[in-house]
């Protein structure tokens, strides 16, 4: 690590281009990351970040003409193979960590490699010892023997990093590429992870860091490369950059701060009344939402915010009563909830929201198919196509045709489809579970605008989110869940970041920060 000439970059990408039929995913992209530097790679959905990472990993060939250099080893970009990438000590950790819950930490670290053996049997002692040594060099305080399932979220990510750098001579050789590592972490866990990353950088680790969280990028990265439509639009030091400037760079326009766009609304009559809801982690939650009100709910992971939405919607059995517009919703009956006017956007878009191999049209009509039903149960195809074309333009979905499979859309656009599917039917109650997770700032602003527009029409909204900015931007009122109960409920004017942090983390947070 130290024999490297300081002026020479640890990771250098030169003139990288990649075209797909019909699109230019990357055009002439160059960037450099020097030893011990943390460089942010940011850009909207579809800006080419993922393509760049795939090329570095050798899983997708680049167009000829580009060049990649790692630790002085240079290669033509079109020739990179996964083997080369591994040998050059490029390590990748993706948002989906790909860990195995029921295996131990050591097994997770060495998964995919032949385990050490003695007399034909797995030498568990040696496996644990080797895992412990990697974890120790990364200064991660986790026992290799414990099952992964018991680990806190930030430690799981660190285990994934340990796996990515296993089998190296120097732990901090090469470069570490992290793709949205904090997207699914609650704030204190994200903070712990970021602390660890800073420590790695101080030990000489070169990091290329992909994230949508602007505050995080500003707080922890040294330099920044912004991609837009496959080209580098900014390459600069992070110092002196603020969130507004950064989002302008990413989107190419000034995104009206959604907080400014927030209009004071007086709440209408009561719409949703939930009494003593009990299920999973919930130990009796009371809640009301008025027409046109946006209620934010938050809490630590496991506090039950998702469970609460699912219990109201009927996606999860519950005890306690839920009334929507005066009508009682039976437990565990989604169809009845939908008929009563409820709509639900689940947290896990790909697994629970989108029908990825079906077309945009079929996805958009999925929620209210019966609207297109004629006599003999026939679906009016022309009306369906027209409605989908209208929804695509009204909700700003970027796609070539309504016949295109949803799998081909970017994450933000998939989320717009899942949201638009419900909003076209004008639901009375909209339940959103972490609606902008992994979505770029532009799509996020668009989604927020749509949610506010729905509320303006009188739709009651509940947003569950672990993202403080989102809660502050959207909510009229915030409810914090702690230990399965409503810890506190407060109007927007009483809520700020500090208040949220205190309420969400309760005593743990205070202890944590004293450590």
């Amino acid at each position, binding site marked *: 690590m130290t024999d490297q000439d300081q002026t020479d970059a640890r990771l250098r990408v030169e003139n990288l281009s990649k075209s797909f039929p019909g699109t230019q995913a990357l055009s002439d992209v160059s960037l450099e990351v020097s030893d011990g530097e943390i460089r942010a790679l940011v850009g909207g959905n579809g800006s080419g970040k993922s393509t760049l990472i795939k090329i570095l990993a050798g899983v997708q060939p680049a167009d000829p003409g580009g060049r990649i250099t790692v630790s002085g080893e240079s290669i033509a970009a079109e020739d990179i193979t996964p083997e080369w990438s591994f040998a050059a000590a490029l390590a990748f950790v993706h948002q989906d960590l790909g860990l195995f819950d029921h295996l131990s930490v050591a097994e997770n670290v060495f998964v995919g490699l032949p385990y050490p053996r003695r007399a034909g049997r797995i030498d568990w002692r040696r496996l644990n010892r080797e895992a412990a040594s990697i974890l120790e060099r990364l200064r991660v305080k986790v026992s290799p023997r414990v099952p992964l399932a018991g680990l806190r979220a930030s430690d799981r990510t660190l285990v994934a990093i340990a796996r990515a750098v296993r089998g190296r001579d120097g732990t901090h050789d090469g470069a570490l590429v992290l793709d949205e590592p904090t997207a699914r972490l609650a704030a204190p866990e994200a903070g712990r992870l970021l602390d660890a990353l800073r420590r790695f950088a101080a030990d000489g680790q070169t990091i290329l860091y992909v994230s949508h969280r602007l505050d995080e990028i500003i707080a922890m990265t040294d330099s920044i490369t912004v991609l837009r439509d496959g080209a580098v639009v900014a390459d600069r030091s992070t110092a002196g950059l603020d969130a507004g400037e950064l989002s302008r760079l990413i989107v190419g326009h000034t995104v009206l701060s959604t907080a400014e766009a927030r209009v004071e609304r007086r709440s209408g009559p009561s719409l949703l009344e939930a009494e003593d809801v009990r299920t999973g982690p919930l130990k009796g939650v009371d809640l009301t939402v008025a027409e046109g009100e946006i209620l934010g709910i938050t809490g630590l992971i496991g506090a039950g915010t998702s469970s609460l939405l699912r219990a109201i919607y009927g996606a999860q059995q519950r005890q306690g009563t839920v009334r929507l517009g005066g009508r009682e919703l039976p437990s565990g009956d989604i169809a009845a909830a939908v008929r009563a006017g409820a709509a639900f956007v689940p947290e896990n878009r790909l697994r629970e929201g989108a029908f990825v191999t079906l077309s945009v049209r079929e996805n958009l009509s999925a929620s209210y198919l019966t609207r297109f039903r004629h006599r003999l149960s026939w679906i009016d195809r022309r009306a369906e196509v027209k409605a989908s*074309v209208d929804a*695509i333009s*009204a909700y700003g979905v*970027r796609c070539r045709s309504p016949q295109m499979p949803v799998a081909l859309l970017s994450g933000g656009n998939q989320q717009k489809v899942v949201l638009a599917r419900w909003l076209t039917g004008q639901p009375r109650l909209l339940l959103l579970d972490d609606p902008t997770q992994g979505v770029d700032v532009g799509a996020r602003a668009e989604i927020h605008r749509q949610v506010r*527009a729905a509320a303006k029409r009188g739709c009651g909204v509940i947003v569950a989110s672990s993202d403080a900015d989102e809660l502050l931007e959207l909510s009229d009122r915030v409810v914090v869940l702690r230990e399965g109960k409503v810890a506190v409920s407060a109007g927007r004017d009483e809520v700020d970041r500090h208040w949220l942090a205190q309420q969400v983390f309760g005593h743990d947070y205070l202890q944590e920060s004293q450590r």
Partner: protein
Amino acid sequence: MTTEQQDPETAPHKRRSIAGGLPSHPRPSLSTLLEQYGLVIFLVALIVFFAVWPKTSGTFLTSANIRTTLENQAVVTIAALGALIPFIAGQFDLTVGANGIVATFIVAALTTKAGVPAGFSCIIAVVAGAVIGAASGIVVAYLRASAIVITLGMATLLGGLVILYSKSNSITGIPTSLISFGVKNWLGVPRPLWLTLIILLLVGYFLRATVTGRRLLMIGENPVASALVGVRTQRLILLAFVLGGALYGVAGVVLLANTGSASPSDGFSNTFQVLTAVFLGATTVRPGRFNVVGTIVGVLFIAVSVDGLSLAGASDWVQPVFTGAAVVVAVAASTVFARRRIT
């Protein structure tokens, strides 16, 4: 429809959006067309080949041969259309053949031993098929058991019951009214083919154009997301098995009308023949989806190859090798195409 007024200043995406002049059906590329109609082209090529190949050209395109070839496909087609329904909903169904064999025995036994009128016996057989489908469907949908395992067990069980009842003997002496249905024509076309055509149109309509059909497709694609938009997935999966079962019953009745006797069997070879056509069908017309027209192409593809090869006097091993290879190649190619389409 909501068409929210968008402030252009705050809608950066709309500027670049092409939604204004969005074509609802963009022009497909050559490779898409090839993927879509590859099997159809192959089928046509096969027909042309057998029509000009000296070994088969004398008989292949004669009306008698075309007629018997198609006639023999009525049973397979009806069963394949039935199987399509649970398959579209993402559920394996291996009871196809066994269910059909049970139907042949119900009709044969009721008409020859109990003197029940043929028409009424057929209705009972079809209802029995639906009940058998319901039995698999309830276990699969409500107990969330694996469809492939449950229907495998169900088919084996039914095969055993057929042996118990028949003592491994065939039943003959089927009423002539039923046999004449299998033999007689209407407007120059054998009656079973008319029945097949009607069922083809009904199933096509059901799956392609109705709300329930679309919901079955959604369940097959993503059962969790389907449930989360309010689709009653369990009920519809049960329905898919019931409809499939009823159609296997119909196929069994037509089989009996064609052959004139009920022979004991577990029907697995029929099942695999039918499923081969269904899987071939999923590689064409609407690649990656089980579909009605594709299934017909699959049935015809197998029928033509079997017929042509037997006319040419090919050895017994040639036909299964040919069909098996066709399935492997078609499904593998379709998988590669699909992956290229998605990534």
